[in-house]
């Protein structure tokens, strides 16, 4: 899951980015409004977190700009103002949720999870395919009741695959949603990580869940 954070207060932006990264999300941080909108339009993010008070372009204008391009990415607005009208304006412009500064990290993460859930069509909090279960809230993965330990990137990759079960996911799609903008797409890192996942999820099982679609990419399905 790849998230864009647009926040001009450097320190605030940095800790949000770190908190999200520790939850295995891929995060791009931008401190300028106009540039943030450009990034939001150029990349297919899974969620956008935007501060309302920004230099050059306000958060409200970013929300409007994104929605004008018919991009339905869930947007969370951060506001320092406790005034109701600012939040109302933000929500009316097309934002999905808001958070008032100062906020608790746990709440931010919970709201992001909720937004991502909303992005995928009506999926419940817990993702499941066959006997493979992934809980985004606890980031616990089990197969047949057995716990599987994953690294951050492996988890992120599995979550992305599970949210798009039964669909062919190309390498560019995977890199766009699991890695951030610093990722070099010309390496075979994706294949390496898919192999790691296979070892942990499918090895020793009769039923394989991760499938390679030759010439295209990968797919998660229970036949």
């Amino acid at each position, binding site marked *: 899951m790849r998230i864009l954070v647009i926040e*001009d*207060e*450097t*320190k*605030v932006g940095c*800790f*949000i980015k*770190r*908190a999200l990264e*520790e939850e295995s999300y891929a995060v791009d941080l931008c*401190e*300028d409004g106009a540039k943030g909108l450009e990034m939001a339009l150029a990349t297919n993010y899974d969620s956008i977190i935007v501060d309302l*008070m920004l*230099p*050059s372009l306000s958060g409200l204008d970013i929300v409007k700009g994104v929605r004008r391009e018919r991009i339905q990415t869930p947007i969370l607005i951060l506001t*320092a*103002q*406790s*005034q109701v009208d600012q939040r109302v304006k933000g929500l009316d412009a097309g934002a999905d949720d808001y958070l008032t*500064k*100062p*906020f*608790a*990290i*746990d709440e931010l993460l919970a709201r992001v999870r909720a937004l991502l859930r909303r992005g995928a069509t009506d999926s419940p909090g817990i993702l499941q395919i066959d006997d493979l279960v992934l809980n985004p809230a606890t980031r616990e993965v089990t197969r047949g009741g057995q716990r599987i330990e994953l690294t951050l990137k492996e988890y992120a990759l599995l979550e992305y695959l599970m949210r798009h079960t039964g669909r062919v996911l190309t390498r560019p799609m995977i890199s766009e949603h699991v890695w951030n903008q610093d990722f070099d797409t010309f390496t075979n890192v994706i294949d390496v990580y898919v192999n790691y996942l296979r070892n942990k999820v499918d090895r020793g099982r009769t039923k394989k869940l991760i499938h390679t679609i030759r010439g295209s990419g990968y797919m998660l399905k229970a036949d």
Partner: protein
Amino acid sequence: MPLRLRLSLWYGSALALILVAFSTVLYFVTARSLRDALDQSLEETAAAAVRSLEERGFLPLIDEDELMSQFPELARIDKFFQIFSPSGTITIRSPNVKQHELPLSRRALEVAFSGKTIFESAKYPKEPPLRLISVPIIYQGNLLYIVQVGTSMESVDQTLNRLLLVLLVTMPLALAVSLAGGWFLAGRALRPVDAITLAAQRIAAGDLTQRLNVPASADEIGRLAGTFNNMIARLETSFRQIRQFSSDASHELRTPLTVMKGETELALRRPREAADYTVVLESNLEEIDRMTRIVDELLFLSRADMGEVKMERLPVKLESLLEDIHRQASLLGQESNVQVILGLVMPAIVLGDELRLRELFLNLVDNAVKYSRPGGTVEISLTTHLNQAKLVITDQGIGISPEDQKRIFDRFYRTDDARAHTKKGTGLGLAICAWIVESHHGRIEVQSGPNKGSTFTVTLPLATSPS
């Protein structure tokens, strides 16, 4: 009691009083003049009778017919005629009193003996009241006759009664009509007051955008509404400023709080290296310093607003103050590779508070250094002109757009460029500068354009006696 009712009642009572007084006077004056006219006509008739008797040498009158031919006016039914002997018995009388006995009153007889004329009113049962004149005829000191002429007062009484009736009917009618008119006029005059009250209620309920419809007239109500509107406009402005200020203040204070809360929570989510904690604590310390500075400056400004900040009024040598500041600013400039130079510095002495002036100049020079680009130059100069000291600080930094220039002295106002350029500012420095300049009766101005650098000019009045 509503003003409208009170006004109407006052007006009505006054009017009723005037009407009653007027009617009373009218009634009595009319009664008096009618009676006087009657008396005069009686007197004239009596005088004519006396004259005619005189011509006849006061011979006793015997024949009624002769009497009537002598005094044709007696044939008129409205007057009658009697002649009494000095004993009070009737010797002759006009035919129109025949059916009644009208004896001479005792008092009339007494007055007749003293040779005087008397008017009397008399009332007999079943008859209209009468008015009588009794004239004695005296010949060589002896009372010969008493001539009495009388008339009915019926017409006078009727006239008076009619007048009374007219007054009693028209007076309450006039009072009622004018009361209704007064009620209507008072309502009309007071309607704008009601409108003002309604608007004031809406405004009191919190809607400061409301205004009164000011009547075009320059009367009392128009002036009241105008004054009221001015007051609301000022209230609205100051409310908006306060709201803006508290929203800005809370934003400026929330940002460091957000950083501290976020970083601390993040650090506590899992065990970390000692170095990570150090980074968080150092960052938090920075934020605490920032908040302390904001709170200190806010406190200073609010004390300044309350007039609680003491200001010295002592001679201050600006040129030596500037040299000090130049030394400090040069050190600041070295860190960011900005050169601070002293231009033309003329000696100047102003009356003021040296500490505050130092704060003012240091703030301005510090700003100039902060918003300069590496390699830039900041120039400070001091000149005097007439009785003014002019201090100019010029930088070649990021500059300020014309629309921002109007607001940079506002509390918490920071331009986007300033925010992007340095995170350290509190947004209160220039507000404090403006206050210091103002309390020294000076002026502060800025000339700038985006990327054209900025020039801040402070003008202060020179001390009048350079000692």
